[in-house]
């Protein structure tokens, strides 16, 4: 269950960012922002190899004491960043991967919508629903 999910465009501005509504939402935004550096680092590190071989799933970007940040990048340099609460019993890697896959699928569905201009903020209700299902339930 993620605490914050963000979709970052190729030019590193957010297309979609959504957090669990706690008071420290801004902190999550900062976290996502700083994690972009790590993402870029990982992409460039793998850049030597062919793009095909590069895995879309980037894995754990960096852990802090409170939470962990996972990253996923698409072939068009659209990044998905997910902040997960550390206290949550360790989510297995597979689960994170499957969450990213769902995100990616929803994202492509949005892309198919001719009324969506790439680079716009994402307002799709279907996408929202899907993200909501992945977010932590705030008690």
């Amino acid at each position: 269950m993620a605490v914050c999910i963000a979709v970052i465009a190729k030019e590193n501005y957010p297309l979609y960012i959504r957090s669990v509504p706690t008071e420290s939402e801004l902190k999550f935004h900062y976290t996502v922002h700083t994690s972009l550096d790590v993402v870029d680092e990982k992409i460039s590190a793998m850049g030597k190899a062919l793009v095909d071989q590069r895995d879309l799933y980037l894995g754990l970007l960096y852990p802090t004491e409170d939470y962990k940040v996972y990253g996923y990048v698409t072939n068009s340099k659209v990044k998905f960043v997910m902040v997960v609460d550390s206290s949550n019993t360790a989510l297995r890697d597979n689960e994170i991967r499957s969450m990213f896959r769902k995100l990616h699928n929803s994202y492509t569905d949005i892309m198919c919508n001719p009324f969506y201009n790439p680079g716009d903020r994402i307002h799709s209700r279907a996408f929202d629903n899907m993200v909501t299902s992945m977010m932590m339930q705030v008690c």
Partner: protein
Amino acid sequence: ITEVCGAKRVGYFGPAQFYIALKLIAAAQSGLPVRIESIKNELPLPRFMAMKNDSEIRYGNPAEPHGVKFQVPHATLEKNSYKRTDEGDKQEPKSPPASPICSPPASPSSYQRTPLSYGYSKSRNGLEQQHGAAYEVRHSTHQQDGPASGNYGAKSARACSTLNRSLSAEREPPDSSAHYADDPWRITEEQRDYYVNQFRSLQPDLNAFISGSVAKNFFTKSKLPIPELSHIWELSDVDCDGALTLAEFCAAFHLVVARKNGYQLPETLPETLLPDYLQAASLKPIHDCVLFDSYSEPLPGSQQTRDFNRPEKTSAEEVPDNSGLIKDTSKDDKQGIQIFVVLLSVKFYVFFFSFSVAQESIALRARPRSRSYSSTSIEDAMKKGEEPPTPPPRPQKSHSRASSLDLNKIFQQNAQAARSGWLPPPPPALPPRPSVTQAEQVSEVELHPQMTRPPSQTEENSSAKKEAVLTQPPSKPVRRKFRTETQVLENPELSPTINVTSSLSAVKPHLPVQKQSSKQKRAIQTAIRKNKEANAVLARLNSELQQQLKVRNALKNHNGKARLQSLL
């Protein structure tokens, strides 16, 4: 009144309830007791307070509450509201939309709006109007927004005006309309026909897709805000491929129409708008079809018509790949519609085939996700592991062969020749083909009719007689390439050599006979070019067949696996 008319009981105002309610209002205003029996009397129209909205002033009296008729003030009709005569006099009532959750009229003002809105016959723009408030009241009436600035544009204005006319038309007695359960999300027959016609205007082949950009332009004309259109698209494009099938298009159009009439868009697609549902519905006989009179062909006939379809296509289009591809692109779940299109009336033989070649290219263009947009090529390239779009079909072969023959002309000629029904039996006359085996001849005869027909047609119609004859030999070998691959087991050794020699020999006698006219010179040149191409093809084929020959010989001679493998 609410109780008497039954709205309390069912929880909403269906048309029946509404009509009765209005009649009871009239009765009450006339001083009669509020009872069911009162509605039997002939009563004047119920009187409502004047509204400030100038639109209501224009529309004057509310519609007569009698359960059947509605007056439509003619002054309010838009000019183009009746232009679509092909809608005919669709007197079928639109199934009255109702929100099951609407409450009985709370305030008189909001209640007044609804009978007046009944009199509306214009199509309106969605959002600016007072119907923000009216949404809550949501009766079973056809709430339409007041006359707003935007004009939908001819098409959708007509859509709404069709609805309006159906509103104003004679209505069935309430009991039969109860069948539709007052469902605003159910598409009536006339609406469906309208949507189908619109689809056809965008995309002549009912089996193909409307691409995203085309649909975007079309729906943008409705002047709905983009986020709403985006949501409508999300709802209606069920398979999320960036293109709309006929069913998806109908659903989307219906949602647009509903939205413009003031209905909030649902969060998920209603069941009656699902493509499966719509397709099942479309297979029932569709009446009032404008172009095709065989819409009512029942589904069980589909299988044979499909097979019928196949040879029809193969013969006329002369490239087997084409038929395969057309079937491919049409997506089997559109069988019903496909059959309607292809069916027997020769009139649409022409129609279909003159578009079919364009069709498959359009369909192929429209179908794969990665082709839909200009600006998102990279992102589209990265889809969720979808395989690359099918390569463009090979009709170039036919085109190259027939580059001197206009395909459309051929098919039209074909159709004209085939007026009497199925295509006439192949002309028996064939150019001389010396030293051809029996098997070859049989296959040739099969092939020739399909090919000689277009050439023969051009013979009749154009003066370039020789051109047609000349194009025959190259076309036959090209065609043969596909056939011999299937026949290679029968007579592998003979075919390639005979092919080459016969084609050459067939070509030679024609050349010297040529007259020296400029047109024929050109024809000669094209023929020569084609012959060269054919020769190249044949040479390739030859080498392949030789190879196969070797393999077979190896097999025959039991030379051992190793040798065979080395050959392969």
